[in-house]
């Protein structure tokens, strides 16, 4: 496990983030997704969930949680712990030491019975994961986004949800899951970040005592497989009981975070749809009054760009037409001086701002781990400043529309 320390006196807390990544695959996605749900139920020292959570309350309400997501072709589990710096409270223990110990135990010394996870926890968390997967449809904006990506990537592991597959859950029991967990720990790339008023010299010995990890885990992430868009974009229409239509579009980019062309792609996305001054907001919302939201999002690790908007169902063709005009406009080099300036100023602001959030600084640095780059906020900013309109046009020509997804109502259904 690599340990990264970002020393700072800016915050009233220590923030810990642990990234655990393995290649996305059909056979492992569900057990890996289920694992952190089970780990948060109890540890060897705090085997009952109530005692586990009481311990967190006792550590001044330390914020413990985890996320599951996809980065490039990897499935990442991120565990987080945010705890008060002792200087603000009258604590009888070193809170940083206790935090590292707690996180280490949560990952490497879970509550066990008969040499494997507790059955009661595994069964309960199977239900929780199943319900989480089912609940994606409750949020139509997220549902449409997930469905669009799944349609676009239907021949790649990236189609899978980071939460795994519902149909795999019944086949997992406490013993099988525990075996998968051990394999996962032995084969995943592990990075621990600590941000706060501390140093590498202080953190490393604490980590060595707290984490009992098998030796020999890989130390690098492989670059993602870049695919070309379909020669003719596919259109997928899905019907549900909704009032508002959700128009989502999936596009493929020609470069990723690790490439020298990435800053041009960032500027491209800014001009297209990342901001309220972007072409999508101005033309779909402000000029045509078709939508409340119309934006684009760049996934630089996988090489995808997505567009999303909520519209009146009968306005599908019109909205799609306006969005395609914006894509074509940038490819034709229609980029104003103001668009370039505003986009660069906004990107510069984002890159500077992230210094004020411990978790954002950590995530930014972790991008370097994922992509084998050595960018700092300042160096990426300098790269962004140097991007020319010609480079943006070049980046635009490498972005190809692949999938048009429309979630609509059931009226007139044949």
């Amino acid at each position, binding site marked *: 496990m690599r340990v990264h320390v970002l020393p700072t006196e800016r915050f009233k807390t220590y923030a810990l983030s642990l990234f655990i990544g393995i290649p996305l695959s059909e056979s492992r996605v569900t057990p890996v997704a289920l694992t952190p749900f089970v780990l948060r139920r109890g540890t060897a020292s705090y085997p009952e969930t109530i005692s586990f959570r009481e311990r967190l309350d006792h550590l001044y309400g330390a914020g413990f949680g985890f996320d599951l997501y996809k980065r490039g072709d990897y499935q990442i589990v991120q565990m987080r712990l945010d705890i008060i710096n002792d200087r603000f*409270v009258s604590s009888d223990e070193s809170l940083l030491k206790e935090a590292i110990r707690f996180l280490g135990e949560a990952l490497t010394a879970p509550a066990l019975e008969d040499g494997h996870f507790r059955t009661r926890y595994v069964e309960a968390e199977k239900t929780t994961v199943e319900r989480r997967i089912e609940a994606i449809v409750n949020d139509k904006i997220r549902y449409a986004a997930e469905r669009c990506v799944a349609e676009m990537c239907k021949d790649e592991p990236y189609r899978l949800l980071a939460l795994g597959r519902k149909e795999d859950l019944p086949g997992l029991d406490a013993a099988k899951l525990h075996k998968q967990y051990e394999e996962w720990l032995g084969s995943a790339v592990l990075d621990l970040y600590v941000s706060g008023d501390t140093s590498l010299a202080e953190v490393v010995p604490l980590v060595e005592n707290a984490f009992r990890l098998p030796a020999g885990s890989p130390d690098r992430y492989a670059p993602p497989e870049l695919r070309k868009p379909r020669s003719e974009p596919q259109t997928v229409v899905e019907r549900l009981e909704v009032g508002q239509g959700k128009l989502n579009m999936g596009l493929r980019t020609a470069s990723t975070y690790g490439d020298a062309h990435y800053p041009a792609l960032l500027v491209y996305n800014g001009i297209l749809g990342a901001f309220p001054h972007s072409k999508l907001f101005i033309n779909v919302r402000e000029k045509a009054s078709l939508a409340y939201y119309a934006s684009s999002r760049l996934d630089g690790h996988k090489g995808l760009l997505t567009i999303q908007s909520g519209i009146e169902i009968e306005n599908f063709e019109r909205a799609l037409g306006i969005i395609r005009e914006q894509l074509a406009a940038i490819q034709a080099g229609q980029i104003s001086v103001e668009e370039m*300036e505003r986009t660069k100023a906004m990107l510069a602001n984002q890159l500077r701002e992230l210094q004020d959030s411990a978790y954002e600084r950590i995530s930014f640095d972790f991008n370097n781990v994922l992509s084998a780059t050595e960018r700092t906020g300042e160096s990426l900013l300098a790269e962004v400043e140097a991007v020319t309109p010609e480079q943006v046009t070049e980046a635009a020509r490498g972005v190809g529309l692949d999938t048009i997804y429309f979630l609509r109502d059931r009226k007139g259904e044949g």
Partner: protein
Amino acid sequence: MTVRNYPKLQETLLVAKLDNGLEVFILPKPGFTKTYATFTTRYGSVDNRFRAAGHEERRVPDGIAHFLEHKMFEEPEGDVFARFASQGASANAFTSFDRTVYLFSATGAVEANVDTLLDFVQNPYFTDENVEKEKGIIVQEINMYRDNADWRVYFGLIEALYRNHPVHIDIAGTPDSVRSITKEMLYDCYRTFYHPSNMTLFIVGGVDADAMLERIKANQARKTFEPAGPIERFFPEESAEVRTPRKEATLPVSLPKCIFGYKEEPGPQSGDAAIRRELTTKLMLDALLGASSPLYQELYDDNLISDSFGHEYNTGPGYAFSAIGGDTRDPDALLAKVGQAFAQAAERGIEEAVFERTRRKRIGAYLRMLNSPEAIAGEYTRYYLKGGDLFKVVELYESMTVGEINERLREHADPSRLAVSIVRGGEGSA
């Protein structure tokens, strides 16, 4: 101008009231690269009946405060977002029940961005054409929320609790009420509620407080405002009873969503007593329903709740209610169990040890919140408008007793004032 020091928190706040009545707060955060600013008017969706000094009483269409918020961003020379973008600032705004907040965050050109914030909010520009154009956008915003099951179940609870008080009216209004809004109405509301004496400016981040205050003073000195009298706000009589004990709706959801809560007397409206009541209620709810409570674990083990289960306490001018719930396979079983737990706790009392642990947890959460400029600006202003001081919260927690929490519990959890809102998946839905 006064400087307030909070040595335990290692925070220093500069406070000033300008000649035109604007209240200014500046909190320097050494080492921070970003500055975050909010410009807040005491005007939200509940202020739909009012009388400005020297004018007739008015009843305005639902959703007008929110409409006004949208329209402020348009200036004769174009969209304000573009100007903020040129200055590297990310701007936004939102409308709640009792406030409208305009904000930006920036890492450079901070003084110019503060000027832009003050200038655009203090320069209304409404035309028949730009007001008409906005209606399509807002109707899409309303439609987006109508498809949002979490919003629907939450608002369903407020509709079940309140018959007359305008808190039960959707903040954005309805498509019809939005279509009835004219530029004249917007100007009327603007003149009433956007006078500097009804507003506060909060700036937090890597700023020089004195220089910033001078800049703000100079900006305000360039503008003239008619003297403003007090604003009278009228709220209809609201009975202590809930409007309906149960409200159900159908939307495509995977599991029913269920939120219930107790309606109570609005209680003290401002000052330390109001803040104290809010914090004791929240602590009490956390002790009973938080993730480390035996009740939570029991409900989770019985498969009646998921990680979505939560609780909150909401108060404002003339209303106060709790909201408890989340996704559940069986709303009635959940309601019965939680109702029973409240009754039992009211009888036996919350234990001292549970109270202590919960208090410790909440103090920690409060201190963690102080890392976030956005949260500080939002919460400080909210406390201030309620007549309290966000930076005295730790002392307030330290002065609480378990007896006080138990008294709050008995007062709040009156089963005759409980209502529930449920959203279920209909036939043929997901």
